[in-house]
């Protein structure tokens, strides 16, 4: 490799990492990985890295062989992140965190403002049931929710969402038990929109709210699948 080419490895590596951050910001990839509050920071960092790469490309400087090898590796890693998009199994991730009490990651008790039942999201329902856990209060309320199918070994499949405080690493599942129509077999990770009513069922010796599904519609994974 020529001397001028090797001097460009460092600006190239900077440009690749800048592209990773900027393209993740623009392509919506961050919606799948990070909480919204961090998105501007990632985008601005990408722009800064690209600017630094351009500035450094105009002033190439020599470097030792070890550094060049390390930066070449850095280029390959950045390329891998850039070219292989994340495609996590939410069900697998949530099942791994099933020990989180109450499907937690969230202890917001009570809603400041309660939406009418038909407008509540799955997360709203979970928070409401946690703050006022008397199932009789919600019996026969209309339900209109969406989420992914969370299949845990030895347990009936639930409809769930992931709550994220920072990034996917701290994602915690919240789920609602569902009484699926006879003959319907929910597939793990499948995204569904469910219309139905809230019912009451006895489970492990105590009464609990359960979504009685009347209408189930498969939907694509939403562009912003993580909830704060």
């Amino acid at each position, binding site marked *: 490799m020529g001397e001028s080419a090797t001097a460009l490895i460092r600006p190239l590596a900077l440009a690749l990492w800048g592209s990773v951050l900027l393209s993740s910001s623009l392509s919506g990839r961050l919606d799948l*990985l990070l909480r919204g509050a961090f998105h501007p920071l990632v985008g601005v*960092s990408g722009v800064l890295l690209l600017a*630094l790469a351009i500035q450094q490309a105009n002033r190439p*400087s020599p470097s030792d062989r070890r550094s060049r090898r*390390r930066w070449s590796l850095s280029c390959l890693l950045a390329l891998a992140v850039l070219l292989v998009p994340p*495609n996590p199994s939410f069900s697998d*991730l949530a099942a791994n965190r099933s020990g*989180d009490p109450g499907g*937690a990651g969230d202890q917001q008790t009570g809603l400041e403002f309660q939406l009418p039942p038909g407008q509540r999201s799955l997360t709203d329902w979970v928070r409401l049931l946690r703050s006022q856990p008397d199932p009789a209060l919600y019996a026969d309320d209309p339900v209109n929710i969406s989420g992914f199918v969370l299949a845990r070994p030895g347990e009936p499949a639930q409809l769930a969402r992931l709550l994220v405080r*920072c990034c996917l690493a701290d994602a915690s599942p919240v789920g609602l038990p569902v009484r699926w129509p006879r003959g319907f077999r929910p597939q793990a990770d499948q995204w569904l929109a469910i219309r139905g009513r809230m019912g009451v069922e006895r489970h492990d010796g105590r009464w609990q709210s359960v979504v009685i599904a009347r209408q189930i519609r498969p939907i694509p994974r939403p562009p912003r699948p993580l909830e704060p």
Partner: protein
Amino acid sequence: MDRLATAWAIFQGLLLEALPFLLIGVLISGLTRWLTPGGLWLQQLPRQPLLAPLTGAAMGFALPACECGNVPVARRLLAGGAPIGTALGFLFAAPVLNPIVLASTWAAFPDQPWLLAARPLAALLLALALTALLQQLSESQLLEPGLLAERRLNQPLHKLGLLERRSGLIGATPPPTPAATGTTATRADLNSVLEHCSREFLNLATLLVLGCAIAALVQTLLPRSWLLLVGGTPTLSVLGLMLMAVVVSVCSSVDAFLALGFAGQITPGALLAFLVLGPVVDLKLLGLFGVVLRPRAIALTAAGASLTVLLIGQWVNLLLL
């Protein structure tokens, strides 16, 4: 295959969240280098065993970055000739003792005033303990060789032993230092500072990738429920949550919100242990520490931090349970 895809996504989540903070840290480090040529200002920082780490810890309020951003800043402090105690105090305490982390702890636990006081206090105590422990090592046993060489370049020759000097004549009077003569070192030009920043960012980013990959794999393979199984047991809960802090590797500015999810199921000592250990020791930091400390010093840090946090957690459980 699903598991591998999930690990890849967690890896990307950790990395994309940490890279901006790393860049902030590197830029602050570059700014320090530019503003304090020759590290003269850094060399004036206190050297007393107690005052030095306290000064370093207090610097966290001026440089509010999480643990990834703190590593390059601490490295710059050390390279510029700052007292070891000050730099280590900053490295270990600043990830908690900064306005962003304290505000997020308050936002997550407004109903637990004891935690708002205990977290910074415990972080300070941990920083003091680790600084005292690591200062038992000589600089050459403690600091990464490249950093040590850079540090010695910025130190006056009369402060170095004969074998530590790489130039000069034995018996000759050392040349006067800029500090002694009252002259100031020339400020590096912005281009060379930016070049240094870019080199440092790329070197640290490669190590960060390694740490994030390990953290993502361990997280995916180790069910979190195992770590929370022991929630109610005083000692085991502290140990379980310490292990969780190391594995989860989440940024110190948001770890309080994560802890909120299981705070009700664990002992108060375990909650504090999670919030104090994570910012100092976690899998994501593993590689980054390698640019500051030698492997033996990293092992000593991990062992010392674990023991101190275990004791703090136990003591809190004794008081509050």
